[in-house]
């Protein structure tokens, strides 16, 4: 079959932007991702072998249990290229392994949202002191560093986004974040892609199943504004769309009832629901035991947003013009039981030139054959490279009838 060359305007590359929905529901120290329940298998309680609310990176080691099954794991041999796993530190790579040693990792690798509650001040420093020889008194401060390093790491970005809204700034007329309690929720980029879609974020605070507060970024500038609750219109925090961080500072009371929301040593004081407690139980060691309160299960949280993914799409238009693509090499295209060879001998090979094409024209009447017309059913389109190597096949859901006087164009799309 002859090949048709793509014309100048027949091959185009576009970028398809998609906004996948992502939803987390937090309840009783467990996270539920996109309302997916934990599925148990023949060996493992959880088929993906990751905690609830986590996604498994390669989805390896499906339904395996430690001690029962062997696990797939990655390994690398230390050589001159100097490659290693990120879990192996530089000093460990240099000192713990010789050339030729095997460095191994483990699967599954998982990701989920994490909450970090920075209290009493996000900007607190930690100091360590040496003790005097008798151990009675601290004498010398030898180390000072940030207690909440994630806040310090985000300070520059927060000031950078100050042009979007004053609420981003570390220090502004709205207060000094270093002096405030901050509820930092980190969302790994595997959940949202390039960025969280502005305007799509919604945080819902439920108490005993009733909605007591909702934040949305209605202005699409990163401000998280209360749309339901005790102080609607107030800004309770900001979101870093590209980086996947939500910082909540809103500390007004959403409901007068007190429940256990903060982990710590006894005596633990029950707290009233506030935005700084949003997401308690999201990989932050806050649960019924650490809060010392059976009422912790009264709280549940819903975090939903849309991500942004960009996919390059190659679109190809394959044209079947009128008067062309009217023949098929399928054996059933010709009438059955016709001789293929006219003459053959040691000198001559001649094919039968008058073989008839099977008439596939449908008739509306019984016992009546419609007059013959040249037509084919196109079932697939093959794509070749410039060296005529077959590089792809597009198969149609149903074969398309092509009559001799018809022009057809097939639109082929390929995600790249």
């Amino acid at each position: 079959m002859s090949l048709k060359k793509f014309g100048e305007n027949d091959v185009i590359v576009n970028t398809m932007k998609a906004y996948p929905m992502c939803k987390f529901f937090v309840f009783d120290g467990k996270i539920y991702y996109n309302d997916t329940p934990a599925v148990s298998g023949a060996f493992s309680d959880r088929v993906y072998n990751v905690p609830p609310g986590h996604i498994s990176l390669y989805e390896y080691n499906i339904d395996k249990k430690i001690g029962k099954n062997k696990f797939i794991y990655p390994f690398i041999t230390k050589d001159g290229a100097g490659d290693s796993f990120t879990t192996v530190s530089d000093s460990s790579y240099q000192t713990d392994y010789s050339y030729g040693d095997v460095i191994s990792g483990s699967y599954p690798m998982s990701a989920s949202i994490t909450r970090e509650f920075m209290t009493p001040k996000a900007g607190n420093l930690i100091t360590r002191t040496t003790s005097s020889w008798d151990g009675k008194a601290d004498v010398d401060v030898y180390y000072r560093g940030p207690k909440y390093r994630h806040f310090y790491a985000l300070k520059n970005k927060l000031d950078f986004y100050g042009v979007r809204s004053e609420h981003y700034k570390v220090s502004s007329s709205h207060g000094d974040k270093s002096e405030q309690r901050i509820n930092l929720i980190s969302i790994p980029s595997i959940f949202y892609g390039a960025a969280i879609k502005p305007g799509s974020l919604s945080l819902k605070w439920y108490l005993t199943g009733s909605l007591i507060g909702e934040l949305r970024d209605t202005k699409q500038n990163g401000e998280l504004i209360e749309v339901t609750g005790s102080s609607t219109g107030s800004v309770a925090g900001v979101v870093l769309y590209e980086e996947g961080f939500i910082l909540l500072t809103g500390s007004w009371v959403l409901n007068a009832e007190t429940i256990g929301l903060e982990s710590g040593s006894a005596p633990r004081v029950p707290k009233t629901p506030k935005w700084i407690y949003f997401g308690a139980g999201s990989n932050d060691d806050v649960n019924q035991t650490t809060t010392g309160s059976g009422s912790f299960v009264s709280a549940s949280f819903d975090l939903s947003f849309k991500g942004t993914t960009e996919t390059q799409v190659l679109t190809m238009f394959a044209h079947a013009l009128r008067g062309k693509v009217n023949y098929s090499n399928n054996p059933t295209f010709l009438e059955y039981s016709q001789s293929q060879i006219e003459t053959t001998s040691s000198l001559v090979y001649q094919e039968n030139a008058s073989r008839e094409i099977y008439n596939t024209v449908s008739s509306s009447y019984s016992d009546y054959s419609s007059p013959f017309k040249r037509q084919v059913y196109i079932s697939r389109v093959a794509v070749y490279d410039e060296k005529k190597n077959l590089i792809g096949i597009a198969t149609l859901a149903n074969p398309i009838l092509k009559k001799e006087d018809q022009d057809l164009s097939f639109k082929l799309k390929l995600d790249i």
Partner: protein
Amino acid sequence: MAVTNFEMLDTTKDVTTTRTLLHESIPLTGTIVSGTYGTFPDEGNIKNYTHGQFQSVFDYPYLSSSANHIFDITIGYDESSALSESTALSTQQSKKINMYNQFSQVLLGYTGSTNQVRKFELDLDLDESTGTVMKEAVFLNFSRLITKDQIKKGTFSITLGTASWNEDGAAPFELVKTLTDSSSTDTAGTNNTLGGDYGLLKENGSGVARGLVFYQAGIVILSTSSWASIPDFLSESNEKYTIENTFVSQSLTSSCDAFRHRVQNITFNNATEINSAIYFCRVPHNKYNHSTNPTYLSASTIRVKSVNTDTPVAYLTTIGLYSSNNELLAVAKLSEPLKKDPTNELTLRVRLDY
């Protein structure tokens, strides 16, 4: 930040490439292949097709989105095999012959003046010498998801049950044979052909070759000789079938089921090639001591200098890699800014994996 000048990379001295092999250990226990997700032979993780040409094994019931495709099983024999003579008794004979031919065409190609399809052999010389030709075979086609770029040479192992199907209460795994490619290494013990490198699967202990493993293609071909001595490779409705009878009279699907019943263990390591380009970006002592960052100046004086006789100082945070047309292609960030002044020279190693 606007770039004011570029430093040209000398491709002979400043650019080099490396290749690292990342491996994964893949254990596949026989219980996945037969019996875990349902009652043999109708397990939920085994997919049969209406075309009946092969059978797919998944690591979990395949109707679940959690399932990964692990490998396909099929069988076949050459048209010159003794099994192809009994057309009357045979089931799906042309499919079985076509299957053999397809694998041999793709993996071995053609030979001779008449362009005959080659036959699989239990040695590495492809000369079709007597006694080593494998005219009947079981084909295991591993998914690229788990073989990645190739199966690591010398790591493949398969343990097969070679006892009777169920005679006198016996079970297939009362006798086992473990086949390994331990004689294959990166430098020896393999041959290269159309389908890539292949090595021999030899029986542990006796060292008899009983199969082939094509490393890049991720295909394992097993000879029927492992089960040649048993009367019931398959037992069904009180009928016993040797492996030859199974191949002839049973459908491809039933033959695959019978084989599946005898897989105890499969393990191998895969390999992924990570190619890297390394760019040595050299920062001379007398350059890059100034910054165009707006914060570098304060009231028209350099912020990091207090006295005008001080040497200029800058902090390097980012390296931009540009094409020959000065188009920015990639950006490398330092984990922490590096102090640069006229008294020091730096060489920054930028590594790009692809």
